[in-house]
């Protein structure tokens, strides 16, 4: 009998808050409106017009910037006539060389693999939706991307780069590399992508195909 006590809500259109489990209806949202839980104020839904198209453009931009950011040094040091160039990958390699494989792997995943996979996966998923192609890979892949979202830490890396540069500026000559501009733009692009991509729109696509 417990099954019928849904408080007059139709469970096919109602939504349970992911933070407090309260069942509620979400009103139809206008552009840039957000819906919050009535009880705990968690963000339940947002709406952006053309969220998927814009995200796809941003993801492609991000992938190009990511390639550029990896190609050239982010920062260069000059001391006693010797130059040292630091690329995104060199921090990972240096930690492996210093016999700290754990930190090296951590660095590799958080600054290279997760961001790269996130960009490629987003492009794949959004392209599939655009050409109305459905594959069994989309749901698990999108789930993986969502769950590893917090582990891509490029913006933290940029802040760390600034800290390291300021620490070194007294001792040596620090020069900004070409890739640093691409890297900064990449972080801007990724942040915008995160705000623009509405996971709900991807899930709507999944729901459409599940029926």
């Amino acid at each position, binding site marked *: 009998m417990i099954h019928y006590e849904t408080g007059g809500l139709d469970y096919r259109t109602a939504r349970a808050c*992911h*933070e407090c489990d309260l069942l509620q209806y979400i009103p139809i949202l206008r552009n840039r409106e957000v819906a919050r839980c009535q009880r705990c*104020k968690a963000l339940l839904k947002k709406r952006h017009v053309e969220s998927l198209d814009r995200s796809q453009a941003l993801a492609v931009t991000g992938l190009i910037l990511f390639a550029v950011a990896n190609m050239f040094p982010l920062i260069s*040091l000059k001391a006693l006539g010797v130059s040292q160039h630091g690329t995104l990958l060199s921090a*990972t*390699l240096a930690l492996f060389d210093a016999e700290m494989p*754990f930190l090296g792997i951590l660095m590799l995943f958080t600054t290279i693999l997760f961001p790269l996979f996130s960009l490629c996966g987003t492009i794949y998923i959004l392209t599939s939706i655009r050409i109305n192609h459905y594959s069994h890979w989309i749901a698990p892949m999108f789930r993986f991307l969502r769950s590893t979202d917090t582990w891509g830490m490029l913006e933290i890396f940029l802040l760390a780069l600034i800290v390291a540069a*300021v620490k070194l500026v007294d001792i040596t000559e620090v020069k900004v590399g070409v890739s640093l501009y691409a890297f900064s733009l990449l972080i801007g692009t990724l942040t915008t992508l995160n705000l623009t991509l509405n996971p709900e729109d991807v899930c709507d696509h999944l729901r459409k195909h599940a029926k």
Partner: protein
Amino acid sequence: MITAREAGLVACDFCHSLNRPSIDESDNTTLLQMHCHVCGSVIYSRIPDSLSKTWALVIASLILYIPANVLPIMTVVLWGDGSPENIMSGVLSLLDAGMWPLALLIFVASIVIPIAKLLTMLGLLISVQLRSKWRPIERTQLYRITEFIGRWSMIDIFVIGILVALVQFGTVATVTPGMGAICFAIVVILTMIAAHSFDPRLIWDVMEEPTRE
């Protein structure tokens, strides 16, 4: 006002579709693993063993937090003189060099955030175990902030990585990472997983009890 669990529904954490499990939910122990009918994700009404998992992770990070602060995170060798640095001495040396904004940044990211995060997680765990009904909205917000902010503690690890990569001038100056860095990195990772394994719905479950009479 009714929750999905009271209605006998299980929401998918990933695509938010509501599922109606065919097995009677009142018998929780025999519940088999369920999958969302839309996206195929494993679904559950509450994260299984959320409290014990979170406790284990929080206690492990509390223990590792000690070596993370005591052991050197890196050793800077200048003209043959090595000076091991731990987290606090790194902050102090930045302060001595007059770079107080950076000292503040590292202090907040490496000391304030991990401690605040561990205390918040402990507070949340204890409040849920005591079935507290105290300020659920604020506690949920606290959880949300904790989950969001924890990753920024990683900044110190990245600074070490960058310094190790850049400062390699043979006998003149080198930087090598220390064991403290590994411990600190593990603390950050474990607290991030702990925040993730804590189910905020547990804060709200006790709120339903009187109305269930």
